[in-house]
């Protein structure tokens, strides 16, 4: 397929792999964090590990929208859907399986709630138009990647005067999460593979504090396997040169200054919350969005009573350590035994972008080449 196959070329991959090996200083161990779950998924899905020398270790970061949703917010969504029979709760597919303290949305459906999977917030708005006698709620999750589409949907809902639609906003922002990682005492990172889709919206400038204040390179990368490899090559070159800069591997999509129109729409529709709970990372100030005063009529949290109770993660769950990159997925006590994709305890095991699910589904084999004669 055009515009896809070009970014999956095995010959180019081998060439980049060789360059990365050359750039790696003998005896030095490199820890690079890919911030974004999309990268984690691509790395495992395409076997990018097979192209890296053993001394270059990829640490999976917190940029998985589903993974950072705390249990209490799942319970809130479930409570609204179960207490109000006229409600149709809509959410992205991955969200359906995230466990709350009272089961997942899938379990909610089995108990009689009406929770539907949508591919876009616009689909939720369409459901609202088609069901004027029902209240349709979009359970919004995601970073700056998905926030603009939620914002545009709200703009449209307001313009069309649709009153049976609201948004339960869980949008979060990436920079505070990266700051939390950098401030975490138990992690030594050499550099970051920067988010791709988030950066199409916010641009590259917001990352400039990372090389400036922390002396670590960041390279914004695309999501095809060659993008990731090339970004790693650019990082290794910076480290070899003793440089620390923000570079943009994904310039074909990511403008340095971001998407001003998307940022303006977001600024109109959302405002920063004073603080928000992140799964595993705890409360982070100014790290999440809620609907602005202008869109308060569409705010589910103002329309409905939500329990709003903070629910502690199960004791055995070490998602927080995995999200911060302190633990590798398989180092978690319950990984693969009590916690599997079909019976997830923690969020990292739910979404295909979650480090644990990506590792479990794609990476769980002894890394040795097999003889192939096909």
């Amino acid at each position, binding site marked *: *397929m055009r515009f*896809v*196959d070009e970014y*999956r*070329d*095995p010959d180019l*991959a*081998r060439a980049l792999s060789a360059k990365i090996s050359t750039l790696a200083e003998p005896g030095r161990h490199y820890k690079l964090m890919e911030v974004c779950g999309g990268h984690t998924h691509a790395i*495992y*899905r*395409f*076997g*990018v*590990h*097979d*192209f890296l020398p053993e001394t270059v270790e990829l640490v999976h970061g917190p940029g998985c929208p589903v993974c950072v949703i705390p249990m209490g917010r799942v319970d809130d969504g479930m409570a609204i859907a179960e207490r109000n029979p006229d409600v149709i709760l809509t959410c992205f*597919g991955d969200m*359906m*399986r995230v466990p709350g303290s009272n089961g997942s949305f*899938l*379990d909610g*459906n*089995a*108990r009689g709630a009406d929770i539907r999977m*949508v*591919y*876009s917030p616009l*689909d939720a708005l369409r459901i609202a138009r088609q069901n004027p006698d029902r209240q349709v709620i979009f359970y919004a999750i995601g970073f700056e990647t998905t926030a603009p589409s939620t914002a545009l949907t709200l703009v449209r809902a307001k313009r069309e005067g649709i009153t049976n639609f609201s948004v339960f906003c869980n949008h979060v922002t990436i920079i505070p999460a990266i700051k939390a990682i950098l401030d975490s005492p138990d992690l030594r990172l050499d550099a970051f593979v920067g988010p791709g889709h988030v950066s199409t919206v916010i641009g590259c400038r917001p990352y400039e504090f990372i090389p400036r204040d922390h002396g670590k390179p960041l390279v914004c990368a695309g999501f095809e*396997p*060659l993008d990731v490899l090339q970004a790693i090559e650019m990082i290794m070159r910076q480290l070899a040169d003793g440089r620390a800069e923000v570079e943009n591997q994904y310039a074909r999509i990511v403008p340095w200054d971001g998407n001003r129109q998307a940022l303006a729409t977001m600024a109109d529709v959302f405002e920063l919350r004073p603080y928000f709970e992140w799964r595993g990372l705890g409360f982070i100030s100014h790290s999440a969005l809620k609907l602005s005063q202008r869109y308060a009529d569409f705010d589910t949290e103002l329309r409905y009573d939500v329990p709003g109770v903070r629910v502690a993660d199960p004791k055995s769950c070490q998602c927080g350590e995995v999200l911060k990159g302190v633990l*590798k997925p*398989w*180092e978690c*006590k319950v*990984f*693969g*035994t009590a916690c599997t*994709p*079909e019976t997830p305890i923690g969020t990292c095991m739910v979404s*295909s972008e979650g480090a644990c699910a990506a590792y*479990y*589904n*794609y*990476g*769980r*084999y*002894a*890394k040795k*080449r*097999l*003889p*192939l*004669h*096909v």
Partner: protein
Amino acid sequence: MPKQFTEAEVIERIEDMRRRRPRFTDTQITMSHGSGGKASRQLVEGLIVPLLDNPALACLGDAARVQVEGATLALTTDSFVVHPLAFPGGSIGELAVNGTVNDLAAAGARPISLAAALILEEGLDAEVLRGELEAMAAAAQQAGVPVVTGDTKVVERGKADGLYITTTGVGLVASDVALAPELVQPGDKVLVSGTVGEHGMAIMLARGQVDLDADIRSDTAPLWPLAEALLATCGADLHCMRDATRGGVATVLNEIVLTCQLGAVVIEDKVPLRPEVVGACELLGIDPLYVANEGKLVAFVAPDRADEALEALRAHPTGAAAAIIGEVAEEPAGRVLGRTGFGGHRMIDMLVGDPLPRIC
């Protein structure tokens, strides 16, 4: 501080768990139990099989084999609850005939006759019903298998999606046919009889839940001619066949390797795919290896007969796009690996949950 295991130990511990008979511990049925993936396996192997326990059932093939006075009969049944009833490339009536014919074919059985049970919802348009019965008749005629008995029930409005069909089929297994996952050998080639992923994607697009226009048609087709050709060409060198329906090719491969405790390696860029399916799957983030087919065989053939087997498949119009997509190896036991087009490796595990709504 608990003992810290190495990565290899953790992987091995997970494989031990996977090898155990799945347990059914859920408190209620969710849609995942119908997906053909892990939850379905827990339901079938953890609840249904233990309660109805007998040797023929325990094989869990596409069809059960029953000995009757020297003859081996194959018996299978399948329910069809697809929504919408009609979709590009087919409809529930055609699917109901082909689906059961194919379960027999994959078991190496010549389909003899079918029974059909119809569950009709109050208010179903008679013309829709007539159309589906005509589709069943046409499919039965094409497959050369008559529908010889049946049943009808009507349920109240709202209790069914218009029309559900259950078909049951009887087939005859020739005395020299031996097909089973246990017969699969290291070195066997894995063949697939054509392009994969069309049925599931056709249904998904037909439901209109995603705003995507693509010309993808269901691949529903009877598979006995292909199965017969493989049996005739390969004889005992054909070790196992499966009909890659729910859960797709990936699920079939996992079921086989879990049973025979060998490994399978799939060369991903050898998997035949129509460009429309590749495009739709890319956009929706779905792996076509997990998408349902309604007219695709997966066959395990001894390596020195694989090329002949491929020719036999390609000689038939339904098998024109057949391909060798991988091979069986000793390692990694019980697992399926993919070599990606990019040149890396990944696991191809069983499906968890269901990316797709009711598809058959």
